[in-house]
């Protein structure tokens, strides 16, 4: 045993040295004093990743004293990953996320309040309704920079041969007209519309704004309650009638995600599919040769074309020792021409007014002009900053809406569940 002790000590020492040698590099400054920032991007499409990396290269070339390291993040599990990084004090300096994921981090004190860090140029360039998506309490915890409205992607041939009026952002279909149109488009193995409602809650809430629906109402005391009014019932009622009464919407699509409906759309099984604006890229890539398609606005109601969105955001970690430089990088990244590059890379709309005016985003090709025209109608998603919303969504609203759309329960039962059960959930978070 005595002979083995030195050997054991040597192995242990070697292991410790090995571990130390292999450990991650720390520090936020290089030896020559250069500030080093990390930027975790969730860009994933090739054009978007390329645009982000190119912008980082341009920044680094122009700012030798402040170098940015591009870190590739992933939408999968980003919340848990960021939470762990925050708790461990190892968060990236500049954080890419979505506004509906920021509330917990903002209230948890993990994100820097950007109000005094951002230049007036950027603050004024982005409309107030977009800032509202990243404002929690008195602070602003992210810069909303890309947003994605829902649009109707339609089979041009079916639409034109049916003789229905083609809607425009200036003269969209009303919800009742949309119902009539889908009935007209239905027949000979084609459904007028396919609603991919695997995740029905955000679609229902966001499109509900067009009819004045809000569902979540914040009182003077800051507490949120759920109330259902006539406007809240227009969009879900239309979809339910299309599926169950008119048979103009494909029942099988109710359980699908957006991408799942594309083969049926290309095959002429569905005349229209309500999808996020960025799905156009998949349509361009996957549509069969000669397939003609067009982008239409979603139906309007008493609230016009209003719909809710949760923009993509850039935030600064509260723990970052170089918040000012991080904010300067964000300002650089979101200068109008750069915002346009990012928007085109992600097939989304920029929030910035100047970027939105760029002619490249007003071309008819691939429906850019229709989407850009919808930008001024975009509002914060109704449940954006409601604490307890995730639980309400998963435990109450998702099953209730799925049953409602499939025809298993009626309007009163849906209201009871969303409102009565929902308020009980929210009450627990607002004591």
């Amino acid at each position, binding site marked *: 045993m005595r002979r083995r002790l030195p050997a054991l000590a040597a192995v242990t020492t070697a292991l410790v040295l090995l571990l130390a040698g292999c450990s991650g590099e720390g520090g936020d400054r290089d030896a020559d004093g250069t500030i080093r920032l990390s930027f975790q991007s*969730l860009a994933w499409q090739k054009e978007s990743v390329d645009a982000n990396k190119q912008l980082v290269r341009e920044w680094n070339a122009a700012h030798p004293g402040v170098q940015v390291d591009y870190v590739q993040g992933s939408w999968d599990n980003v919340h848990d*990953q960021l939470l762990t990084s925050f708790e461990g004090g190892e968060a990236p300096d500049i954080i890419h996320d979505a506004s509906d994921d920021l509330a917990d981090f903002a209230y948890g004190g993990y994100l820097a309040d950007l109000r005094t860090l951002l230049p007036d140029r950027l603050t004024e360039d982005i409309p107030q309704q977009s800032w509202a998506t990243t404002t929690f309490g008195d602070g602003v915890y992210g810069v909303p920079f890309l947003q994605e409205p829902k649009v109707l992607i339609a089979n041009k041939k079916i639409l034109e041969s049916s003789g229905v009026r083609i809607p425009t952002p200036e003269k969209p279909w009303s919800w009742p007209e949309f119902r009539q149109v889908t009935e007209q488009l239905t027949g000979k193995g084609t459904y007028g519309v396919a609603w991919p409602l695997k995740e029905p809650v955000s679609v229902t809430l966001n499109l509900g704004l067009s009819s004045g629906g809000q569902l979540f109402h914040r009182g003077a005391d800051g507490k949120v309650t759920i109330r259902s009014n006539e406007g809240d019932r227009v969009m879900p009622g239309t979809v339910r009638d299309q599926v169950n009464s008119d048979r103009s919407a494909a029942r099988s699509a109710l359980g699908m995600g957006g991408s799942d409906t594309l083969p049926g759309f290309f095959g002429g099984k569905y005349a229209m599919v309500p999808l996020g604006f960025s799905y156009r890229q998949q349509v361009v890539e996957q549509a069969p040769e000669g397939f003609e398609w067009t982008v239409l606005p979603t139906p309007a109601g008493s609230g016009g074309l209003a719909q809710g969105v949760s923009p993509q955001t850039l935030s600064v970690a509260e723990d970052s020792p170089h918040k000012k430089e991080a904010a300067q990088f964000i300002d650089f990244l979101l200068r109008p021409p750069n915002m346009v590059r990012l928007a085109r890379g992600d097939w989304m709309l920029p929030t910035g007014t100047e970027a939105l005016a760029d002619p490249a985003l007003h071309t008819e090709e691939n429906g850019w002009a229709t989407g850009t025209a919808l930008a001024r109608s975009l509002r914060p998603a109704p449940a954006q900053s409601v604490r307890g919303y995730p639980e309400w969504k998963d435990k109450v609203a998702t099953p209730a809406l799925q049953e409602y759309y499939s025809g298993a329960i009626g309007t009163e039962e849906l209201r009871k569940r969303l409102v009565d059960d929902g308020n009980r959930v929210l009450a627990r978070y607002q004591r």
Partner: protein
Amino acid sequence: MSPRTGRTARAGQYAALMCYLVFLAFPFLWLISTAFKPARELGSLHPTWIPEDPTLDNFRQAFDEQPLLRAAANSLTAALCAALIAVVIATPMAYVMARHRGRLSTAATGWVVVSQAFPFVLVIIPLFLVLKYLHLINSLWGLILVYVVWSLPFALWMLAGYVRAVPPELEEAAAVDGAGKARILISVTAPLLAPGIVATALFAFITAWNEFFFALVLLKTPEKQTLPVVLTHFLGAEGVADLGPLAAAAFLATLPSLVLFAIIQKRITGGLTAGAVKH
């Protein structure tokens, strides 16, 4: 049972087995099919098993867009090291657990079972803090350490079962012949445990090879990311995916596990036979 009934029963068994194999193989075959399909075929309403116009574009695109080889090398390093270390630690521990029954052994077994119930999210923050203290964040060694700790309970449980299957009489006979404890362990028990050790190592390897969440959280720089993390770069928000390149990359990612299974399966069988005739 008449020979005819026996044949019918046997045919039924084979049919059931075939159905089960088809069921198991379906996702993998579909993955292969998707990996070789051009984008237009991916959006077809009538998908075919055999791509009509097979292409390697998805593989090219996957390699162009993501550093798959580097990620695979990281995964391989982490998985091999984790499997090796887990087995080296677990084998003597499992022997003690199986052979020396007592309160401690029972408590240890209970703990092993309970520890498997902890979700990742529950342990990740304390683990992250410990690794940060050790300067092992963004380090493959940190990840290997986590994989060893994570796979150790089940490895122990598995190996303890194999140890219990070795008749103690063999060890007693060796002791009567004058062999010491170490000699018995090395010359008598270890060879009989070989299939179990190989199976346990395989389990630890596959657990580490497929693991995503720890790698996502602990490794920050692109140079150190493992394959499952890099695969998620083909996924966008709300489940949108770059399906072709994702399928191509995922297909390549399954190959090492398959190859390892193919090699080791023979060893496990061979080891079992060797154990059966050991004296």
